[in-house]
């Protein structure tokens, strides 16, 4: 079981970190840690489409919404295990949420991925908004009031373990996908579609595949969000949330998995870190700073933090200066 060594080791490291967070820090930092994990999964999955395949999707929030609503509805109505064992059923529900989101990704991606960059962005945005408006009109899913009182795992440590499992699964699944021949195909599609077609890569299929995998993990992240916050509404999954994930991917470097991890952590902590500024000036300047930094980032360092390199290569290149 050589291939399970690294995932299990990372999972154990995360579990120990979780123990430390559980007993060492207050509830606020614990909440931040949970959100960081959700954002990491979102950023990595969007990186697959935006970074590795070179398509621009602005609809991530829609798939997150699908995963969240499916997982929440199942947990509220179809929970078949007693509360002590509910972590197992939640595992199943999040998986189902992800699969439904993946199916939605297939439905959205199949007709749209023929379009070029700008148009694809608008169409994915459009689909995400349609999903949101549809959810707004579905009264059995709460409509505009949303779904409240979603049962969750009522301890921080269980939440953390649950999400770490998914984080490790997401990271290693995507990492291995990228390092495989499928991943090379995706990179080829990004570099030059016509050349890739000439080399025998089915570009349409590759793009749809990336989109489906990305939507699956977006749905998973949505399910996790539903169980952590225990309240979801169509207003939690707007265009701005999609843009938030895009900012994470761009900041980390489109094409760098570890970059997305770091950027997700930074972007999650940033609003709280900027809160003293808000208290001093009395005005909420956080989103203004956000958008301004996006513009400056694109003009001055469009590659983002890590560019296309992963953390070990960045370490070697900039810190040890041996590359």
């Amino acid at each position, binding site marked *: 079981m050589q291939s399970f060594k690294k995932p299990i080791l990372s999972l154990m490291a995360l579990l120990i970190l979780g123990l430390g967070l559980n007993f060492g820090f207050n509830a606020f930092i614990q909440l931040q840690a949970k959100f960081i994990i959700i954002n990491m999964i979102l950023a990595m999955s969007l990186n697959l489409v*935006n970074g590795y395949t*070179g398509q*621009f999707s602005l609809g991530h929030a829609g798939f997150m919404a699908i995963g969240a609503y499916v997982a929440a509805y199942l947990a509220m109505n179809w929970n078949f295990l007693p509360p002590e064992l509910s972590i197992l059923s939640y595992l199943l529900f999040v998986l189902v949420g992800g699969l439904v989101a993946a199916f939605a990704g297939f439905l959205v991606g199949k*007709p*749209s991925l*023929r*379009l070029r*960059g*700008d*148009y694809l*962005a*608008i*169409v994915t945005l*459009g*689909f995400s*908004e*349609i999903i949101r*408006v*549809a959810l707004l*009109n579905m009264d059995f899913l709460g409509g505009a009031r949303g779904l409240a009182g979603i049962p969750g795992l009522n301890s921080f440590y269980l939440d953390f373990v649950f999400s770490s499992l998914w984080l490790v699964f997401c990271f290693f699944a995507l990492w291995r996908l990228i390092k495989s021949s499928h991943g090379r195909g995706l990179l080829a599609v990004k570099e030059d579609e*016509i050349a890739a077609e000439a080399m025998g890569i089915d570009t349409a299929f590759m793009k749809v595949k990336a989109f489906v995998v990305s939507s699956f993990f977006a749905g998973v992240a949505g399910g996790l969000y539903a169980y952590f916050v225990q309240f979801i509404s169509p207003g939690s999954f707007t265009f701005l949330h999609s*843009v938030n994930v*895009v900012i994470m991917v*761009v900041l980390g470097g*489109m094409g760098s998995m570890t970059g997305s991890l770091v950027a997700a952590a930074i972007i999650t902590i940033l609003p709280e870190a900027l809160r003293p500024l808000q208290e001093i000036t009395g*005005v*909420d*300047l956080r*989103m*203004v700073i*956000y*958008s*301004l930094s*996006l*513009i400056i980032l*694109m*003009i001055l360092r*469009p590659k983002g933090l890590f560019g296309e390199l992963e953390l070990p290569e960045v370490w070697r290149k900039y810190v040890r200066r041996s590359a």
Partner: protein
Amino acid sequence: MQDFVQHLINGIGLGSIYALIALGYTMVYGILQMINFAHSDVYMIGAFAAYYVAKWTGLEQHPGVGSLMIILVSSIVVCGILGILIERLAYRPLRKAPKLNILITAIGVSLFLEYSGQVVFGADPKVFPDILMDSNLFNLAGVEIKTLDFTVLTVGILSVLFLNFVIYKTKIGKAMRSVSINPSVAAMLGVNTDRIITFTFVIGSALAAIGSVLVGMKYPKIDPLMGMMIGLKAFVAAVLGGIGSLSGAVLGAMIMGLSEEMVVAYLSSTYRDALAFGILILILIFRPAGLLGKYNVEKV
């Protein structure tokens, strides 16, 4: 029947407003091949500029056509300057960059304008002052035509005609058309492409400013996020007609305006926004070049 004619008039009025904004999108796309996401926020700034000018100069006490002119001109000036600033600071450094970066920057500028608007103006909606007294102007086929509707229609149609004149009958219009066909050859033939691009942004922003004043008169509630929905619908209108084509933008806008009005009147108003997205998706799946656009085959 009377209701239908009223809806028709509303639809055409709405369509002409969408046309003003859609023309901005389509002109910038024709010249730079980029979607200027920030256009809808320039529109929003135009509405607020008009609001503040009306407030500070006390024009709201003197409604009438003269005040309307003054407010229009000031809004156009503000939006024009804003358009120049955006082009110079955010888009020009990225002229040679991949399309993705420009798209992200455009989104960044749009968000920046929206959130700064919320910080500077306050997030709560403001009431646009009454610049024109609304009254029944005349009677057409049994339907009362109100002053506001009439103003919206005439100003909208006049602006589109003026733009048509500029683009097709003046030298600078010829230069704009040449830059949109092939920028490098245009530069070789002596056209100052930078200046033409700036001029395109100015004209687009001016039209957006006119649109915002008209909308402010008709629907007096303005807030910093008002640009989002209408910008998206105007963009759909531009795509529907064929992005890059001026007549396409106007045609698409009329279709959007009329269909939205009819859906709201005869179906249900909850689907008003979803209709725009639905049309967008349909047109991009079945005819991505738009109704009046040409489909460019990508050559290796």
